[in-house]
């Protein structure tokens, strides 16, 4: 494989703690050298990237994307979704299982991970926790892990029944992977299409309560505690797209208690509130919904204080005709891969003075650690040559017409972004040039 030299950049690697001027050599799909400026002078490389004024960081990792293949390729394919990922600076993504059919078998997982799908970045997958994501019988965790599963989830739906979730946590603990939970008590959210509160009341829409999210998180934490006591196991619960202060408080408490809980927050939940729905804009409809300002502020606070482990996009493409419906009928979800870094830097780095290294960590090392992607999320010798080069000071606005995704359902069309991806390299291959 051809060598790539990245010169004159500011290397930020949260794992080794480097935040300084460094030159980087990528060779044979791995990081071959991270050295002082000028030290790699004279090394011949097939490609040299001048990163002067740029940040050079581990490629971003997203543990929560919907790539819609198989079954809904009119919304997205693995090729188009991962092209959007590369454009957003991501070099590894974890595909959710709510495809058609649901990814709940070794055959399905193998098909999804096959090179023939044309993934542009490193593709991982979390298969369904239960057969067909129906919430009943567990899938074959051992066989799926051997085939490469990095965790289990019924995402889009919660694992609702106590005994099923308990069994899933036990089986996942034995397999050494997390159960990734979509925390929504669907018994409380029937017919709801946005956050409960004054905005929902004014718009005449039924609202999902904070309680519907918090109850499942609290229940799952209780199960962790019980399993630790009764089974002597240490299950790993990963809470997806946390959106409420109450659920976040429960997670904060559980971490203090020493339970193995991690969580993610999506950029839209720290950037927007339910006011963004405006006059029934279905591009602001997702699940969990955009919340009130107090909850949004609590997500920011939890990102700042370290309760949040990582940022994940919940990239969820939908075709135009599906979103051009009555608000209550339109499907949940927005695209997010190309706007995540720009929003994180704008809201967290600029808005909250969060150090760049921490933003990078929340989007690379931390998510890579949650699903144990060995050799990713770090920029040190021997790591995979997964690199993002971005201009952290560039201000721009997102133009959804230029998206690499097959779908355009983003509430951030025209929104201000901070930090622009210049180059994305995955295992030594340049997969995006800005």
């Amino acid at each position, binding site marked *: 494989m051809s060598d790539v030299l990245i010169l004159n950049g500011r290397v930020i690697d949260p794992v080794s703690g480097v935040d300084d001027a460094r030159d980087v050599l990528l060779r044979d799909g791995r990081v071959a050298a991270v050295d002082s400026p000028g030290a790699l002078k004279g090394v011949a490389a097939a490609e040299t990237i001048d990163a002067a004024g740029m940040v050079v960081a581990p490629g971003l990792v997203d543990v929560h994307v919907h790539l819609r293949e198989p079954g809904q390729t009119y919304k997205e394919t693995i090729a188009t979704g991962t092209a959007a990922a590369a454009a957003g600076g991501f070099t590894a993504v974890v595909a959710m299982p709510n495809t058609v059919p649901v990814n709940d078998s070794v055959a399905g997982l193998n098909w999804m991970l096959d090179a023939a799908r044309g993934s542009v970045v490193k593709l991982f997958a979390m298969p369904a926790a239960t057969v067909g994501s129906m919430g009943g019988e567990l899938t074959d965790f051992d066989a799926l892990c051997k085939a490469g599963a990095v965790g289990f989830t019924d995402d889009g739906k919660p694992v609702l029944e106590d005994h099923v979730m308990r069994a899933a946590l036990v089986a996942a603990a034995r397999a050494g992977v997390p159960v990734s939970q979509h925390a929504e008590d669907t018994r409380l959210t*029937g*017919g709801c299409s946005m956050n*409960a*509160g*004054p*905005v*929902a*009341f*004014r*718009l*005449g*829409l*039924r609202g999902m309560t904070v309680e519907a999210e918090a109850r499942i998180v609290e229940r799952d934490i209780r199960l962790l505690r019980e399993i630790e006591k009764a089974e002597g196991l240490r299950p790993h619960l990963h809470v997806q797209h946390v959106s409420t202060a109450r659920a976040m408080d429960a997670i904060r408490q559980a971490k203090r208690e020493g339970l193995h809980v991690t969580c993610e927050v999506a950029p839209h939940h720290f950037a927007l509130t339910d006011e963004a729905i405006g*006059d*029934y804009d279905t591009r602001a409809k997702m699940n969990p919904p955009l919340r009130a300002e107090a909850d949004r502020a609590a997500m920011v606070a939890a990102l700042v204080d370290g309760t949040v482990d990582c940022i994940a996009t919940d990239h969820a493409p939908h075709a135009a*005709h599906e979103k*051009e*419906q*009555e*608000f*209550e*009928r339109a499907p949940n979800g927005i695209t997010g891969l190309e706007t995540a870094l720009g929003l994180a830097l704008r809201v967290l780095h600029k808005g909250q003075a969060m150090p760049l290294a921490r933003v990078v960590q929340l989007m690379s090392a931390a998510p890579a650690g949650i699903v144990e992607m060995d050799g990713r999320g770090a920029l040190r010798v021997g790591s995979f040559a997964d690199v993002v080069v971005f201009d952290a000071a560039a201000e721009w606005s997102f133009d959804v017409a230029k998206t690499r995704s097959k779908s355009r359902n983003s509430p951030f069309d025209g929104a201000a972004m901070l930090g622009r991806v210049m180059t994305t390299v995955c295992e030594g291959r340049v997969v995006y040039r800005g």
Partner: protein
Amino acid sequence: MVRSSKYAAGCLLSVRDLSVADVSAVLGLTTRLEAMPKVERAEILAGRRIALLFYESSTRTRTSFELAAKSLGATTTLVSDKSSSIEKGESLKDTGLTLRALGAECIILRHPASGAPFLLARETGLAVLNAGDGMHEHPSQALLDLRTILTRLGLGASRVDADSLRGLTVVITGDILHSRVARSNAMLLPRLGAKVLLCGPEKLLPEDALGLGEGVEIVRDLDAALSRAQVAMMLRIQKERLAGLELDLGDYIARYQLNGERLAARAPKALVMHPGPMIRGLEIAGDVADGPNSAIEEQVSHGLAVRSALLVRANGLGGFESVTV
């Protein structure tokens, strides 16, 4: 609130679209149209095509919009979800585009989904009049209620300003949660100076209702609310939207029914209103509905007049310089 150009001028999607000056202009036009000779009035929208697109049943709203359009000389066509390609799965967008292709210049929409008129207006670019969308709004009802109040209280129904209803307290009682009439009135009347008291049990009136805006207050006790009010609007319990909510009707009647005894004791002079359909013996006693305080039939008549003005406005006529939509 001024909406962007993604909506055609003349749309009425929410009372929030209307400035106080717009409300005043609608009322002024209503008066002028009412005074006009029939023959002259029938020329105003001659040759225009207006579609009534109804995804929910309706008596008053549909009939009054249709009669209003016809009295202005327009051609109307009724499309309902029960007898059209909507039954075959045609989307609201495509239904709207079809009506536009057939020459409709204005669509009057009633729809069970909150916000549907915004979608239709965006996708067709036509003037859309919201004739009731889900639990959201029923703006023409609020305007006709306003005209009824102004007329009955002798305040002059041809123009309003931000103080026209200063000192007036209106109590809206019943199933506020599911009521688009309550939302439109609670957002319109305070902008003209009125105080709006919302009254009902927690299940039908969550505290979130306070977010409707300034001048809105929640009072749980109907007797206390009535004692402060000059106008009492009663609402039907919307069984079709209760979605599993359980209600003890006997208890509800005891606490929230407007009957002769309660009215005499608390607000003997209050104007009694109801947007219909009413369930006599539940939210309102028959004798009150038929009694001297009642303006229920006048509301219907004002509906015809106000909707005529809205149709003129929707078709770009009537001298609306300050149209904010």
